[in-house]
């Protein structure tokens, strides 16, 4: 029987050798889909090697689910090829748009939270799910600007989308924290609005605080406030697989494993809080 999928990390080339030398430290890896959309060589070799020993989730950055451009069917086909190779637990991307007119900005640009956008994204999520033959998992992004046109809160938008499109959610706890600070909303209200049955995965990450706003940089350790918010997330959504995203200023594998232990401790503590309730 394969081990329970609980705490994982993002698979990063900087760690390939260390992971190979220290097997079994995590139960799963999240892999960045686009990094493995290459003809061959070293990246796919490592991917196949690790896939033999670990469960994997695929995480993309270029689906551009909210864009007004037509869906990029070539991209979806490439994604499907990779899905067949990896046989991931699930496939995720971000609730955003990454460009239009055929240009990829390589950034996760926020959508206006309007009924029009909700209709548009819902229809596209359903088409992508049909194309892939599986449910899509969508992540809340960090954002820096609020559209004057927005009619809904981000959390109402996400909850409605998940319901209407019948998709699942990747809850990035750091992104909730960052956006709550930037747009002055209550991070806990955001969490409470998420449909519990659809929360498939958590992300944790560090960020850069600029005083007037926070930038989602993934280049620092997770801060105490985000750990606290994570505890709240675990209370609301128990047993959801958790991973840490580190994309820049990447420390040794062991350091990220130590940070992941913090997530394990928090989840264990929350489980203990719950134990008396269960006994009653």
């Amino acid at each position, binding site marked *: 029987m394969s081990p329970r999928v609980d705490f994982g990390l993002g698979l990063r080339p900087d760690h390939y050798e260390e992971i190979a030398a220290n097997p079994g430290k995590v139960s799963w890896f999240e892999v960045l889909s686009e990094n493995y959309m290459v003809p061959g060589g070293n990246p796919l070799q490592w991917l196949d090697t690790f896939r033999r020993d670990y469960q994997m989730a695929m995480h993309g950055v*270029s689906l551009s689910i909210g864009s007004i451009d037509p869906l990029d069917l070539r991209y979806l086909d490439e994604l499907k090829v990779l899905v067949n190779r990896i046989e991931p637990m699930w496939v995720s991307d971000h609730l955003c748009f990454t460009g239009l007119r055929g240009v990829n900005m390589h950034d996760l640009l926020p959508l206006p939270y309007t009924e029009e956008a909700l209709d548009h994204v819902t229809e596209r999520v359903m088409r992508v799910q049909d194309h892939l033959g599986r449910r899509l998992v969508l992540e809340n992004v960090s954002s820096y600007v609020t559209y004057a046109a927005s009619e809904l809160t981000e959390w109402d938008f996400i909850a409605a989308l998940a319901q209407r499109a019948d998709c699942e959610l990747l809850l990035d706890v750091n992104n909730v924290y960052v956006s709550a600070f930037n747009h002055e909303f209550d991070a806990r209200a955001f969490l409470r609005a998420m449909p519990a049955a659809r929360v498939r995965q958590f992300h944790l990450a560090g960020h850069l605080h600029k005083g007037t706003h926070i930038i989602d940089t993934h280049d620092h350790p997770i801060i105490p406030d985000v750990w606290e918010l994570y505890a709240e997330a675990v209370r609301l959504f128990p047993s959801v697989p958790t991973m840490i995203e580190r994309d820049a200023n990447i420390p040794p594998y062991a350091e990220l494993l130590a940070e992941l232990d913090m997530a394990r401790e928090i989840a264990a503590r929350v489980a203990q809080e719950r134990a008396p309730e269960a006994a009653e």
Partner: protein
Amino acid sequence: MSLGAPTTNAGSLADLQRAFQDYLLSSNNRFAASVRDTRKADRVTLLDVYRDGYALRLIEVLTNDYPGVMAMAGPADFDYMARAYIAAHPSHHPSVRWFGKDLADFLARTPPFNGSPAVAEMARFEWALGDAFDSADASPIVAQTLIDLPAEAWETLAFTRLPSLRVLSFDFDVPRAWQQRDEQEAGNLEVARADAPTPWVIWRPQLTSNFRSLATDEATMLAVLMEERPFPELCECLIPSAGEEQAPARAAGLLRGWVEEGMIGSFRH
């Protein structure tokens, strides 16, 4: 239903997305009217997170893909060059892996960068190395399979190169300079002009890429091999340099070397 609806009204999803992208790609600031200040930060500061982030992210991609160009140009000139490239070549691919693919051509034809042709050559070399790194996998043939062939097979024997193999010609000694890219402070890497334009071969027999220069007749024969011409034509192309008598032996010797170095993907006869 939003899909077929007209999208010209300001505040529509389409209009907002266009304005956002225009804000990032050009100096069109119209989008600022569509977003709010917060109590802590004004909207221009917040929009700058996206505008700055867009450029910095792609500059980082180019920095990773082109360490040799960075070693030649130094951070300030590299930054200037990268921003010019980003403006001229927005990404059209889902992966940043391909973003830098036109850099060498851009540098070779765009002033003021075309005044330093060695930099464009370095870019071309580094892109070819990157292409070899994650090119399609194939196992090179081994010498014994050729030795075992009956003599008459050589009349029609033709080869394919490994998918990763490519040949480039450089006026400057960029591959040697590239090997020293970490040895000086960025900006100080000097690249000498070669005595004559020199063909170089880049290929990846297993997981590690190789490169080396080619002798003139070797490059000639490799070009013919890559057109999948039969072995007698490989010999023929060496007659001008080796003479009619020596050409077959030279061809066999070169071929053996390539097979042993793992450059040849397959053969048929």
